[in-house]
């Protein structure tokens, strides 16, 4: 049976540092757009950290939440694509075939998580910044929609390596760039078809929830709600 990739994000560990955001830029050749285009909502961050303030001073609290493509099992972005650029892979990823994409942006309109980013112009890297580009990831040009791939290049490399060595993939062997960088180990990636994987185990936590689960998208990412302190004045 094919692997079924999924992720668990523990919001009790996440401290909003955004190492995942920078790591994703570096791994996936996401171009920066500059201040003027950023002001027009054209900045691209396949993963972003949302923050929610609650209360008024002095009783203020903040919650962080990294949001990336939820790799939905019932993905609203997929059926609306007229060219089958958005499609479902056998391993459960919401794939995006860049050279099928004609830029209708229907998928972005359909996505309730706002995690699809459109290339309004060709990316520019002031030389020699282009030398930082990851040769394993294609650069997206004008008119193409792009999104989080769960670092599919790392998944494929890991699978090929394991196959070449005639062995099974080990749990935790494949890590998307965001998971790899996370300083609090808030993000865990793994095979949900393997009940023994750490991701499967954590996904069953009583703190587990799905982002906008009520809209029926069946996301592959489980968020573990922020916990609270259970102690007392006299332990």
């Amino acid at each position, binding site marked *: 049976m094919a692997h079924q990739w999924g992720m668990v994000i*523990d919001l*009790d*560990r*996440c*401290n*909003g*540092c*955004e*190492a995942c*955001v*920078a*790591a994703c*830029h*570096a*791994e996936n050749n996401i171009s*920066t757009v*500059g*201040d003027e285009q*950023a*002001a*027009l*909502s054209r*900045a691209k*961050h396949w993963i*972003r*950290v949302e*923050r929610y*303030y609650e*209360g008024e*001073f*002095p009783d*203020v609290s*903040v*919650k*962080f939440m990294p949001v990336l493509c939820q790799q939905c099992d019932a993905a609203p972005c997929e059926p609306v694509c007229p060219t089958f650029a958005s499609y479902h892979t056998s391993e459960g990823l919401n794939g995006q075939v860049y050279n099928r994409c004609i830029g209708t942006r229907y998928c972005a309109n359909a996505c309730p998580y*706002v995690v699809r980013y459109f290339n309004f112009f060709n990316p520019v890297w*002031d*030389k*020699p*910044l*282009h*030398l930082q580009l*990851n*040769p394993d990831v294609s650069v997206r040009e004008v008119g193409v929609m792009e999104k989080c791939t769960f670092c599919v290049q790392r998944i494929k490399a*890991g699978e090929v*390596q394991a196959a070449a060595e005639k062995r099974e993939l080990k749990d935790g062997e494949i890590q998307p*760039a965001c998971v*790899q*960088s*996370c*300083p*609090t*180990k808030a993000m865990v990636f793994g095979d949900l078809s393997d009940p023994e994987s750490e991701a499967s185990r954590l996904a069953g936590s009583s703190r587990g929830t799905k982002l906008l689960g009520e809209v029926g998208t069946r996301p592959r990412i489980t968020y573990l709600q922020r*916990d609270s*302190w*259970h*102690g007392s*004045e*006299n*332990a």
Partner: protein
Amino acid sequence: MERRDFLKISAVAGATAALEGCGNPDHQLIRFVPEEDLIPGIATWKPSICTLCPAGCGLLVRTMQGEAEVIRNGQLGLLKMGLAKKLEGNPAHPINQGKLCPRGQAGLQVTYHPDRLKGPLVRNGPRGSGQFREIGWDDAIKQLLSQLSDLQTNKQEGGFAFVTSPLRGQRKTIVDTFAASFKHSARIEFAFFGDNVIRAANAASFGHALPPTVDLGQSNYVISFGADFLGTWNSPVAQSLGFGHMRKGRPGQRAKFVQFEPRISQTGASADEWVPVKPGAEGAVALSLAHVIIAEKLRPAASAGHAGSLIEGWWQGLPDYAPEKIASEVGMKPETIARIAREAAAHDPAVAIVGDAATAQTNGLFNALAVNALNGLLGGVGKPGGILFAPSSSAKGAPTSSQSFTSQFASTVAAAKVLLLFNANPVFAAPAAWGVRAALDKIPFIASFGSFINETSALADLMLPDHSPLESWLDDEPVSGSAKTVVSVAPPAMNPLHNTRAMPDVLLDVAHQLGGDLAKALPWKTYDEAIQTSFTALYKEKGNKTAKDADEFWKNAQERGGWWSAEESKSATAGGSSAVSAGKVKAPQFDGDPGQYPYHFLPFASQMFYDGSLAHLPWMQETPDPLSTVMWGTWVEINPRTAEKLGIKQGDLVEVASQHGKLRAPALLAPGVAPDVIAAPVGQGHENFTRYATGRGANPISILAPAAVEGTGSLAWAATRVKVARVGKGKLILFGGSLTEASPELKHR
């Protein structure tokens, strides 16, 4: 993929690459990493060290073959070479254990920055005009030599100064030894968010002049006074690892984390209880907690040991700090103080941390000493779950000394005839009243080793650009973040892209050409030879069990990215010193009349730009700030109620004025900032720092009062009062906001 296998493959090249050539320094200094390990399409992971902040995290650099346009021997060509493609934490390194912060991730762009200096330059117009012309290394070194030999032979009266970022390891040894050889010599380490105050306090309380290593992972109760320890303070990746473990790494056991600060920081946002306090009142809160613990006999006063003796009234149980007496002064409810004190005492091990703005008030040293005493009382010193002090090794050479960045900066460097600069930008990051720019203008000769033109290096007469960290040998001995002895080393991860030379190599070359005692004091031909010497010493001291001889020890260290002890240190207190007087309650002093300047001004370290030294990286400019989601600019945080009173709306351009200057930036209505506090991130507002940062945003440092932390001379950067007013329409670029709302500029389209 097993990274360690790759590491073995990459097996450290540089060691075998020491070229024999002596005569021509061109051949002596530029050494190439052999490229035989390059297979097209296959990545090789090489160890390196992150140098972007003082934490000293270990890196693995993913290098792959690529084609780069480079100039070699004056000719432009396309070279197939190993190129760094991605930075990750080194899983074996004890500080960061494979993890990295966003700044570390973006370090790649330092190497590939389009505005990096590509070779030596000499000034070609008035100072500060930005006019430079290219010059060869031989001529550049001749110019430096003539200036320095005049100083040495006393042809020229006056002194020598060497200003750098904080350095460690053999790089520090070489720089300090070089500087010490001149008669009137000043050696200054510049850091805006420096750790002087915390070091002074820890020396007094515990006998260790070091920042603490916080063992969060095993703690059950964490009290932080102002320290943004998950963002930028001390060793943020090590502390984040500990934080994750303390929250969810121990099944059934979860610590409580309380943060006291006047503005909710990224770290405060993750607290279980965030408690605002008046700026500068952190020490008083710590002593009030101590009062409750002593008065209710939850811990004996004596358990604080020497750290307690430094506090007046400690042995009487701190009667002046009873919660009901100081509650209004510190801006808290008395019952909150009492409750937190009882909770902390009931959840052993508990630990207290102090840093950032709490130590950057005029009473910063008092605040730090007070928190140290509380820590001692809670038993959080030298124990698992508390603070520890990193053991040191004898890997470094002769003991060296340097001054830190204080109000004395201008007068110290003013006497210099020759000033050398390395990765320090005091013109940007000092209050105007310190007169840094004017002092530098009077120095006849300035040479800079930095890779970029910034506000300070723009004043140089000669640019001698260093390699980027990934192109250079590096060594480091982190001072916090792990209880193990850690000595990092890394050979170059890739060949230099440009016509640059490693700063320590240039200094060694110059020292040998100057001859005399200096040449004897710096016997090494190259920087890597100096590092090897220190590792040979380390082998004799500690490494006998791990390698059969010094050569194998050195080779293993290069493969792993350093050497670290197997055991953790149990270093507890070493007595402490009584040199610091206990003193009375040191209430904070603020610059500016409260009537005319009603708000406290709170600058804070930017998660993306740190102290501003990373504002030139486009990835950092476009990564949204965690709390505000602002990109590409500065913002001013105002409490919504204060803003309403002043008629300020989100995004309005406001002017923040102190007695010493004013700045303009768009307003951000922030629920987590106290109504009497105006906060702004440090980092932007560069006048001259590459195409991405120049002329962008505002620099909060430019309006700071020249106030000093009493007892240390460090800048009290949180001690300025300001007024604020709306001046017009501003432009705030928000990532979060712009996801759902069209920006006002768009509406007419």
